[in-house]
């Protein structure tokens, strides 16, 4: 048997050396890890405008530098719930998971204004609940503030093959392209309908076997896009004013 003193001494030396070693490694790799996470999140946002990337590339074909460059050239205002632009923050600094824990009135909304060949896209971030855990997504609107140009979703722990299809199945988020969130000026959002879309402008097909996740997407879109309404109203007005001037 070993003495208590030996045991304590042994454990102390072991844990101390392990702690020093791991802290050193963590410090050494910290910058790379932070940068990787940043690029990973930016790629997720860009996948909402996958069809409109420079040189017709796909998100996975873009190099890390190209991704960072696109974001450097992008306008990234942050809005409050009244649709006013907040000073001193950039959209990429906003952590949606943290915002969601705040009371609704205090939330900040990130907005990415992406430009491609003179066309403007507004990328909105939304977040909600799936079956098991959180789901989130980025929705790109065309310059009219009404037509969806693309959407991308992700999730924390939905069932593979069922709820996880919102991310994995390209046919699901392809359906969103060209849908409209307003009808005659009334906000209706997009509905994920079980049994097949009936309204071609505002509905998409649900994933069979994943009713709760599909309903979660519907709810997330309705509430999430609703937050941006004050801002969307402004761009819709200026867009229609421009349209009148052109005529």
């Amino acid at each position, binding site marked *: *048997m*070993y003495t208590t003193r*030996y*045991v304590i001494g*042994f*454990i102390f030396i*072991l*844990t101390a050396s*392990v702690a020093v*070693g*791991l802290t050193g*490694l*963590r410090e050494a*790799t910290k910058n*790379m*890890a932070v940068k*990787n*996470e940043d*690029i*990973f999140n930016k790629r997720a946002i860009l996948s909402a405008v996958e069809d409109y990337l420079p040189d017709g590339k796909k998100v996975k074909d873009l190099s890390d530098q190209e991704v960072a460059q696109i974001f450097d050239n992008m306008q990234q205002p942050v809005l409050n719930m009244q649709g006013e632009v907040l000073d001193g923050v950039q959209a990429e600094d906003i952590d949606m998971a943290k915002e969601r824990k705040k009371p609704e009135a205090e939330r900040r909304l990130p907005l990415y204004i992406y430009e491609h060949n003179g066309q403007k896209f507004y990328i909105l971030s939304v977040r909600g609940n799936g079956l098991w855990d959180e789901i989130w997504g980025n929705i790109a609107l065309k310059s009219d503030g009404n037509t969806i140009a693309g959407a991308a979703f992700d999730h924390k722990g939905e*069932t*593979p*093959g*069922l709820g996880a299809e919102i991310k994995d199945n390209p046919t699901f988020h392809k359906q969103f392209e060209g849908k409209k969130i307003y009808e005659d000026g009334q906000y209706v959002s997009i509905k994920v309908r079980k049994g097949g879309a009936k309204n071609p402008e505002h509905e998409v097909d649900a994933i069979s*076997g994943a009713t709760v996740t599909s309903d979660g997407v519907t709810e997330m879109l309705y509430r999430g896009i609703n937050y941006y309404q004050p801002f969307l109203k402004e761009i819709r007005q200026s867009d229609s004013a421009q349209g009148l001037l052109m005529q």
Partner: protein
Amino acid sequence: MAETAVKEKEPLFQFGKKERQLLTDPLNDNNPITVQVLGICSALAVTSLVYPSVVMAVAVTFVTAFSNLFTSMLRNYIPKQVRMIVQLVIIASLVTVVELLLKSFNYPIYKQLSVYIGLIITNCIVMGRLEAFAMANKPWRSFLDGIGNGLGYGAILIIVGIIREIFGKGSLFAGSPIEMKIIGPTADYFINTTDSAFFGWYANNNLMVLPAAAMFIIGILIWIQRSYNTKLVDVS
């Protein structure tokens, strides 16, 4: 079993019949998954695609090999009363090393494997090898035993991953630089089911994406292995 205390008065790094057995035994006669039925949790969870399975196999091999090595080096100094705690400290720090390295060199796969990297700590194969082998053997042999067991685990993971990915997703190595699209409904795939007269009926099997499929596949692998390797069959 082959691994109970070996008498030795040999050079530090030797590679003879015994050592070769340490590497090959876990691949068949003493496979951690199909014979000892350990490490099932991660084998069910990460094998829906081949690429994460390969990364997981490499990660577990790294952890078993080095935790065996370090434990064996310390085996004469580890107080018996707290040996499990000491083993856990070694395993946990190696797993943290894997996690940090993945985070900085391959972030997408780190995201995909998520909690299962951390759960290597609880993988029974790792601690099982420390208790059964490293505590009673010299460092070099323990290291080889760790590599052997990691490979035995990895081999099953990759076989299950290949079967699940082909039938569940119609691709191979998705997410890696050598992604292959084999069968699916668009022109990107090698066999395009929308055009093909012969494969028009084909659809991906959604069961294969679920962890339950891995359970069936591992069961079938155990059956196949035992039907040609009859000494594994329990005659009681």
